[in-house]
């Protein structure tokens, strides 16, 4: 039997654990087919949104009375709408509204929710009680109803819809961050950091935040999916992107009136929303598994 000396053991263990957490997560994520498909579709959609002015075959707001409600053809791949605008071009440009709504509203939710969650979880006491009760109150109002109410009072526009969705999504991040911080703050390394005289803010930023990032990343990915649906819903109701600027939700609203004569007007924007939401959901599910320390 081979005898392994202590230094050898340490070296072998060192070689095994040298992989950084990011690399490990990426290696695990790559094994999940659904997540990779989701990531690929998200990547394509982001590229389409950025390159929209160069790849869209037509001007998305240019009306053409000679091309009203044309079915899909070689000239108009996805057909045209009730005023002769090319649907493919509108869907390509609509990706900008949907994806930016998803990203910006989740960024708003993160930038408000994470500091409040850290404060509630780390400081505790009456600050925690106050923040937690407000969070409970916001979570008690159904997501879309609160978003509609906020958007209604702020006024209809894409920017206000993003703010409304962002604020509505904030309590989820407060609650998640608070829970994570409470679990992390009792760890030995946090006590050690406090014992050597680190101020509280430094412990929160340097030691606690990096350890709760994986959970936040998963939630943020899934929240983007919810925000995309919410933006489409608000635009569908006329509270988001305003015409003639293209948005998948408002395109569906218009399409409803032309179901008998031009059903293609309803199919493509809905499919675009579905694909975007599905991709973020797949990616979020995959990230959750890949970042779970128990998974291999």
């Amino acid at each position, binding site marked *: 039997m081979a005898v392994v000396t202590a230094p050898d053991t340490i070296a072998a263990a060192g070689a095994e654990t040298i992989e950084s957490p990011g690399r490990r997560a990426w290696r695990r994520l790559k094994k999940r087919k659904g997540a990779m498909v989701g990531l690929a579709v998200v990547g394509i959609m982001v590229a389409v949104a950025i390159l929209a002015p160069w790849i869209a075959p037509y001007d998305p707001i240019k009306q053409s009375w000679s091309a009203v409600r044309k079915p899909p053809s070689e000239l108009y791949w996805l057909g045209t709408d009730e005023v002769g605008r090319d649907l493919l071009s509108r869907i390509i440009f609509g990706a900008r509204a949907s994806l930016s709504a998803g990203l910006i509203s989740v960024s708003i939710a993160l930038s408000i929710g994470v500091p409040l969650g850290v404060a509630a979880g780390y400081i505790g006491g009456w600050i925690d009680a106050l923040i937690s009760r*407000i969070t409970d109150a916001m979570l008690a109002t159904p997501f879309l109803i609160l978003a*509609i109410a*906020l958007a209604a009072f702020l006024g209809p526009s894409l920017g206000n819809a993003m703010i409304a969705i962002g604020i509505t999504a904030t309590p989820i991040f407060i609650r998640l961050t608070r829970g994570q911080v409470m679990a992390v703050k009792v760890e030995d390394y946090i006590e050690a950091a406090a014992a050597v005289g680190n101020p509280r803010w430094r412990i929160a930023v340097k030691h606690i935040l990096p350890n709760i990032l994986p959970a936040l990343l998963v939630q943020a990915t899934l929240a983007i999916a919810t925000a995309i649906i919410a933006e489409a819903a608000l635009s569908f*109701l006329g509270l988001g992107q305003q015409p003639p600027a293209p948005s998948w939700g408002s395109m569906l609203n218009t399409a409803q009136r032309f179901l008998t004569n031009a059903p293609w007007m309803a199919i493509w924007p809905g499919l675009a929303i579905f694909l975007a939401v599905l991709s973020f959901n797949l990616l979020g599910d995959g990230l959750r598994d890949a970042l779970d320390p128990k998974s291999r």
Partner: protein
Amino acid sequence: MLSFLGHRLLQLIPTLFFVSVIIFGLQQLLPGDPALIMAGEERDPEVLAQIRKQYRLDQPIPIQYFYWIKGVMAGDLGESMRIKKPVSELVLEKLPVTLQLASMAIIIALTIGVGAGVISAVKKDTWLDYAANIFALWGISTPNFWLGILLIFLFSVQLGWLPASGYVSLGEDWRQSLATTIMPAFVLGNAIAAVLMRHTRGAMLQVLTSDYVRTARAKGLVERVVVIKHAMRNALTPIITLGALELGTLLSGAVLTEQIFTIPGFGKLIVDAVFNRDYAVVQGVVLVTATTYITLNLLADIAYVLANPRLRG
């Protein structure tokens, strides 16, 4: 049990207080003078002064809140500026419609969601399991307003089987009532069914590998009896309460679904109020929704404790 109930009821007080503060605070988001916005086209200084007096807009915000909440606690949710009716009356008028839709949606969601979840767990790693998982992913990712439009296209425009819009109450003609509500109820139930399916599958998989199920099998019981009598009974307790918690999804979904199918319920009331800038109605509907949601959460918690003897204490 009593102390649990008391504790949960005590927790409700601050939550309800902050809900009321948030909903009242919405009014402060209005850009400019709320009286001008409330008056709409009417710019007569006398009318404006009357609105300011009626809604106490000339008073400090805490005083405005005090009078508002005092009214709310007495059942006065304000008055619709457009329909000129008390908001509480409007809510009571529309509530039965949404309740019918919601009940049908829950029945559909439980039937599909629990059924698919149980089959998926029992037939793990077979094509049935994969199909159920794909269904769940589809249900979670499909915007219900798109699904509604697709169903109208298929069942109303193409096949002509169901009316595309409108509503007939159960008391008026139950067959026609079902015909007008089955599509919107399915749309509403679809997303919840997907969530329930995932939870049922998880709970069933856990239960199916537990010792008592193994014992039941070892006794020589038929698999059907093991699944239905032993596994499902335990796995489904949290699922039933989860159904109550999905009410938020249901109410959010109702807003869009009622709009698409032109159903005069709670959801349509809030959308119409938004377009008519009838802010008292928006506030009233959000308040009633939040209170209902909180109450149902409490009932779900109590049901869970009652159903689980270990938690009764």
